[in-house]
């Protein structure tokens, strides 16, 4: 099993619903975020192209944060997701330094926190909060090892990219382009 997410940049309108849903679901303290919106404008006027992405931890298959962690607090959980055990985290911040996506932050309670793919919801058979609320159905979550899953079919059919593949992290978030 390999949990992954496909995010359709052609459908995303950058409404930030996913950000708000995540903050509510996971009680993310004010001023912090586990997911966020990025807008890029490429080209030279008048030939401009815009892309909107909802970004979060990429739950990398080769996660540098898991390598950097001195205590096994950052580890691969069920379905290959990268999670932080709060009771084992000493707050050394090596994982934050090691993440090329800057997806982690120090929670005011001291431990390092990040996206969990809402594993507590997934275990109950629900979608992650961001996926569940997306008004344009831009996000698809599922198991990439299951050839019958929606995400596998979508990623097989569409053109996609991952963020900074050259960093060697093998991300599990696919941006459909």
């Amino acid at each position, binding site marked *: 099993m390999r949990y992954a997410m496909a995010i359709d940049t052609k459908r995303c309108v950058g409404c*930030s619903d996913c*950000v708000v849903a995540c903050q509510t679901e996971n009680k993310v303290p004010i*001023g*912090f*975020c586990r997911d*966020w*919106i*990025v*807008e*890029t*404008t*490429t*080209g*030279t006027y008048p030939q401009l192209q815009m892309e909107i992405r909802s*970004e979060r931890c990429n739950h990398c298959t080769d996660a*540098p944060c898991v*390598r*950097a*962690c*001195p*205590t*096994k*607090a950052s580890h691969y959980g069920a379905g290959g997701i990268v999670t932080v055990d*709060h*009771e*084992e*985290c*000493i*707050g*050394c*911040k*090596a994982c*934050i*330094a*090691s*993440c*090329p996506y*800057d997806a*982690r*932050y*120090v929670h005011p*309670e*001291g*431990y*390092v926190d990040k996206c969990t793919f809402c594993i507590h919801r997934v275990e109950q058979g629900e979608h992650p909060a961001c996926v569940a609320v997306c008004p344009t159905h831009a996000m698809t979550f599922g198991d990439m090892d299951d050839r019958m899953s929606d995400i596998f079919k979508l990623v097989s059919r569409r053109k996609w990219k991952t*963020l*900074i593949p*050259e*960093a*060697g992290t093998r991300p599990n978030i696919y941006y459909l382009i």
Partner: protein
Amino acid sequence: MVEELITSGRLTPEVDPILHIWGWEIPLYLFLGGFAAGILFFSALFTLQNKENRYPMAVKILPFAVPVLLAIGLGALFLDLSHKFYFWQLYTNIRWESPMSWGAWTLLLVTPLSIVWAASWLEEAFPKFDLRYNWLKEILSDLKPYRKHMAWALIILAVILGMYTGILLSAFNARPFWNSAIMGPLFLTSGLSTAAASVTLLTRNQEERSDFTKIDLLLIAIELFFIIHMFMGFLASTQVHVQAAELFLGGKFTVPFWVWVVGIGLTIPAILEILELRKHHVPIFVSAVLVIAGSVMLRFIVVEAGQASRWLY
């Protein structure tokens, strides 16, 4: 020309707009750890070569500073942790892939050993010091036959302690400026140079001073070579590494690095040391103090610059 404008909705403290998770605590520790490693290395090396009477300051006296330096450094590390009272988790896990983990274990071995090592020299280093208790004196004299064994262990541990801090930074591929294999050897050389300079500063033995001046001169030359080599590596690498090097070649770290570290911290002390070896009258403390100050600056600038360098996408 194609340009890309990125607007991010994220403004996480300590991460945006540039990473600033590590303040003064980490570079201070990197300096103190390197300094302590340098002192232990010379002390152990010259003990193995039976040169303790030729180099009394380096072998017998300076090791007394090591437990103090390490204690301050460990205090700084502790202050940096944001989930402090879970720090013991470092010692319930061994993670070979994490340089921070083997650094923590090295410190656990080297700190007590450095105390025992210094104690074994107490009688020779400070003959007037009265221990008062006879049982303590007996323990200390029992330690002496094991000095060579301790020296072998210390030489290995000192190299690991001096290098791992640089390897720790170089292992972060997310921060292009740290991501250079030169970082480990550079920090080790800088730590050894700091220790050699402090010997020349404190010793009253003319022979020891001139020998350590020569050692320091060689170490400064190696450091300059590493620095040039590091920038050659960056400039021959990917776009993000070129951009990281540009922080130092016209960017905001240009003056602090080339003037304070390379100029005042390495080149000027090297010139002063050459003059001194040629029997010109140069105040000895100037070059030593500059080397030590340069070594502090190096750690602060490297830690700061690594956090300012990043992948852009």
